[in-house]
């Protein structure tokens, strides 16, 4: 390939070069932070307002679904944590559930991140952790009509009949709001089997990747609010006034996003110049 000129090379940079540069670029801002301000967009604000103030009453039951696993903590956990804190501060009762095997770890992380808010609450009365469910859309549809068959026990094997909060939760009609945070499709199951079927108030704390598919549903009113990725998490941290993990990660996000755009520009310069030469 000795005949390759610089423009050929720009188009054919070994992918491993990018991978190394990317990994190093992500690390640098942790050592040398910059800290740029984060602007809050409407869909995130609507989500926050939907779980605070007049939109939620003490005693209301909220479902919070961990539709993400440990592997997506950086993306989903910050926004999920802010919403849990907000709901607990409003006096809402929360039913936690999850669609990942490692849901217990995500729940434990939430407990430790929002330790002060949980400290004043009582398990089984103010919140309950039902644990993992399998069965996809059938299970979510079933949860809407007969919740106790999907969860006869909570995660710790206490029968739901012995849990005070569960006495008030049998199906969709008992739930004021559903917040689902997903890397997969559970949010869309709630969309079809709860919001679509029964009009339940639903919001998504989604990964950025699904922002594009979630947003039209937000526009159409199916989701009352929407947080998109770690950026949405950082915005929620701004709204509750407690900077956290997502805010810290924003510097690395800045650096890596500039890097990818630079790489795309390089490839296009090479491509366009070469095409002109041809």
């Amino acid at each position, binding site marked *: 390939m000795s005949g390759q000129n610089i423009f050929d090379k720009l188009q054919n940079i070994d*992918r491993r070069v990018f991978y190394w540069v990317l990994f190093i670029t992500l690390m640098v801002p942790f050592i040398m932070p910059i800290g740029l301000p984060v602007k809050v967009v409407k869909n995130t604000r609507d989500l926050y307002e939907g779980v605070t103030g007049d939109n939620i009453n003490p005693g209301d039951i909220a479902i919070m679904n961990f539709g993400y696993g440990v592997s997506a903590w950086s993306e989903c956990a910050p926004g999920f944590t802010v919403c849990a804190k907000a709901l607990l501060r409003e006096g809402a009762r929360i039913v936690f559930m999850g669609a990942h095997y490692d849901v217990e770890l995500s729940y434990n992380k939430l407990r430790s991140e929002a330790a002060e808010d949980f400290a004043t609450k009582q398990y089984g009365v103010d919140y309950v952790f039902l644990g993992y469910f399998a069965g996809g859309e059938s299970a979510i549809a079933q949860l809407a009509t*007969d919740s106790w068959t999907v969860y006869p026990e909570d995660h710790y094997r206490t029968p739901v009949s012995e849990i005070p909060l569960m006495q008030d939760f049998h199906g969709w009609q008992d739930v004021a709001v559903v917040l689902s945070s997903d890397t997969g499709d559970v949010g869309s199951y709630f969309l079809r089997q709860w919001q679509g079927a029964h009009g339940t108030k639903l919001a998504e704390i989604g990964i950025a990747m699904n922002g594009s598919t979630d947003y039209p549903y937000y526009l159409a009113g199916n989701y009352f609010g929407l947080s998109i990725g770690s950026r949405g998490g950082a915005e929620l941290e701004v709204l509750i006034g407690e900077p956290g993990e997502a805010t810290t990660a924003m510097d690395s996000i800045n*650096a890596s*996003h500039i890097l990818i755009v630079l*790489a795309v520009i390089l490839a296009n310069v090479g491509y366009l110049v070469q095409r002109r030469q041809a």
Partner: protein
Amino acid sequence: MSNILKREAVFAVTGIVTVLMFVEYFFFPQDWIVASTIRNWAVIIYNISLGLGGVRLIMQHTMGTQRRRENWQFSVLFLVAFVIMLFTGLAGYLGTGVATSNGIYNWLFNNVYTPLGSTTYAITGFYIFSAAYRAFRARNVDAALMLIAGCFVILSNAPVGEVIWSGIPAIGEWFRFVGQVPGMRVFGVVGGLGTIAYGFRALLGKERGFYAGGAEE
């Protein structure tokens, strides 16, 4: 007779279950015990079926080890990791009701499964970089539009976009919140219709994927 049992009756079961779900949706807005029961069964069957894959995978690796196939040592590694995790997990569950109560299971869960899961999940970051590098080239109008929309969204997603040029967030947000809506909405519409049509064809026994050799062994 055998064809009825192996094919027609199977379709009948599928059709009946599907229709029950429709009946519930359109005529029982609150709840219908029949559909609800069937759905609960489906959830249980699904849970039980997940073990099938495990059986297959164990058979695959056991055979690989027995026949000393290439890389059989890794099959042994797989089996050892599997056996340790399975038995410690079951021991934990049978002892206290929670699998993670077993120290070994809990340690492996936290220090092997969790970091490996996060690591493999994040590996996409690398591949998406090279995919963007290769795909985002202005070869024609289609690719150029994809490139422009992609780059503006990338820059507007990071707070730094605004620092580079104050117009970036506005343009990026337009792409995110308006520009992409028709493209995304159409996938909902035609994908939805496709789901209905596929279901209809399958129920009538027209889809090969579903009846998968259903007529004979």
